[in-house]
């Protein structure tokens, strides 16, 4: 091959930038979102994002659905961790309605939410590996994602879009098989996570791909409204579970990993460490659940017959149960008028629900504060001047989930 580099005199060639469409269907975009990149050779000059390919008008639909039917809409926000969305919605309804859940329900919710956080971070971290070219990690941990989905299946019947739980608790108690699967997960997963980390964490190629790419400072991240692992990687330790604890998170002991530079490597590390912390929370929660004995171990929902459907056997035999069942299904229950904002720590950050109720059967206005939507705006700033391959890594390490972005 010739070693000569052609040196042309200045101004002899007109240099133009190339427009590249990192289009909605592309192996590297996880979900449907479009990036129109302006490239100068390999360097990115500017980007423009187009989203809305999976906009399903959830906020409009929610204005015509009673509260318990909106849970299915929330599943489909961040579909990699749908139980967290479900629980967030139930917490919002419970805040509006003034329902207090018993401790056992809170601990069971914590187990499920942390399992889904592990599932979400596992998907993100392994996909970052796939985008860097390493498929093995992704396929290796798939078995444990399967186990998590099997746990969801035992609890609510569905694997991905779970529609899990009800206002006040769960639809059924966790059965023995669910607890066995949780124990199996707690026993086997740490070794797998360690092996997964060993594949990437100190891998020369992975570190070269992810270090110093897609970095953002803490001030810019806060100004862009970043939350969750992306913000923590930039150095700000804001975690909704610690700042405004919900569902008895204050009863648990856990750390919040924080990065320094906010680059892709820090984001990968923060998610990895959060998986260890989630594992520790699940162990603590599982122990606490096992400590409930006798009739306390049968509690799986709050005692709110106005909002929680009674047992079918009671509906057919008892008058009050029949009336409550009728009122809930036909939408005659009293929903207080008011406006409430409740947020939970989703897989990507602060997932907020702003619910305005006018006392009617359906919400007057429901707005989802979606973390993916908010931090994707920063993509241009993160990738200005970077190489195209860095843009791919940044896009996957931000954990952009189209369902949450568009709602």
């Amino acid at each position, binding site marked *: 091959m010739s070693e000569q580099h052609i040196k042309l005199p200045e101004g002899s060639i007109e240099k133009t930038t190339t427009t590249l469409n990192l289009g909605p269907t592309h192996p590297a975009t996880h979900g449907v979102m479009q990036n129109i990149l302006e490239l100068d050779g390999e360097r990115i000059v500017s980007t423009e994002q187009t989203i809305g390919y999976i906009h399903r008008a959830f906020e409009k639909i929610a204005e015509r659905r009673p509260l318990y039917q909106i849970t299915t809409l929330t599943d489909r926000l961040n579909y990699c961790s749908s139980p967290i969305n479900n629980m967030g919605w139930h917490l919002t309804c419970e805040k509006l309605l003034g329902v207090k859940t018993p401790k056992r329900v809170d601990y069971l919710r914590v187990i499920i939410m942390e399992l889904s956080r592990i599932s979400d971070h596992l998907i993100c971290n392994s996909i970052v590996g796939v985008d860097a070219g390493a498929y093995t990690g992704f396929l290796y941990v798939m078995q444990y994602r399967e186990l998590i989905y099997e746990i969801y299946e035992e609890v609510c019947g569905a694997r991905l879009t779970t529609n899990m739980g009800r206002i006040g608790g769960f639809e059924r108690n966790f059965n023995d098989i669910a607890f066995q699967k949780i124990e199996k997960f707690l026993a086997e997963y740490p070794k797998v996570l360690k092996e997964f980390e060993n594949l990437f964490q100190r891998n020369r190629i992975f570190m070269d791909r992810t270090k110093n790419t897609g970095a953002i400072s803490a001030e810019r991240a806060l100004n862009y409204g970043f939350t969750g692992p992306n913000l923590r990687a930039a150095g700000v330790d804001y975690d909704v579970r610690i700042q405004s604890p919900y569902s008895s998170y204050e009863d648990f002991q856990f750390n919040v990993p924080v990065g320094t530079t906010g680059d892709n490597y820090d984001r990968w590390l923060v998610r990895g460490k959060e998986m260890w912390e989630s594992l520790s929370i699940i162990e603590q929660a599982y122990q606490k659940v096992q400590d409930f004995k006798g009739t306390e171990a049968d509690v799986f929902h709050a005692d709110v017959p106005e909002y929680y459907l009674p047992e079918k056997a009671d509906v057919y035999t008892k008058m009050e149960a029949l009336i409550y069942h009728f009122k809930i299904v036909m939408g005659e229950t009293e929903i207080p008028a008011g406006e*409430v904002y409740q947020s939970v720590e989703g897989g990507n950050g602060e997932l*907020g629900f702003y619910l305005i109720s006018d006392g009617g059967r359906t919400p007057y206005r429901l707005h989802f504060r979606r973390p993916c939507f908010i931090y994707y705006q920063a993509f241009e700033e993160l990738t200005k001047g970077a190489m195209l391959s860095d843009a791919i890594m940044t896009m996957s390490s931000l954990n952009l989930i189209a369902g949450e972005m568009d709602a």
Partner: protein
Amino acid sequence: MTLTNEHIINRLSEKFPEQLSGFEEPYGMLTFQAPKELNLKVLNFLYDDEELKFRFMTDLCGVHYPERKGEELAVVYHLHNLEDNVRIRFKVFTDINQPDVYTATGLFSAANWMERETYDFYGVNFVGHPKLKRILNVDEMDYFPMRKEFPLEDQSRIDKDDEMFGRG
């Protein structure tokens, strides 16, 4: 000393005497409204003041109240003081025939797409926004779908019988 809602009300009332209204605390979050011309002044005050420090924009969304003539469209800002863990909700109302509101993108970069979404859904024109165009819906759409006058489903469909679906 801790930042209580009462203290925030006092600070706001002394800075903007007689101009703010609607002070209430639903479920513990202080909520108030201001005339739409003052929205940037209030946001800047909440940001810059050394005691208030509301430097994180959690959310920006719109609401349509068709019964409130002359101020049908609301823009709701949720702000958060991360250090003291205090949240606040601030609303401005604007007329649906002339829905101009000053953009907050100069102060919070997060407001960029959130204002585009509010424009897309409600038609609120954010004055000074760098690129106010539709974000989630198709660009060719010529109406603002979240407004209350637009029904959830397309009424011009003849292949579906609403009676059969429980909504006639």
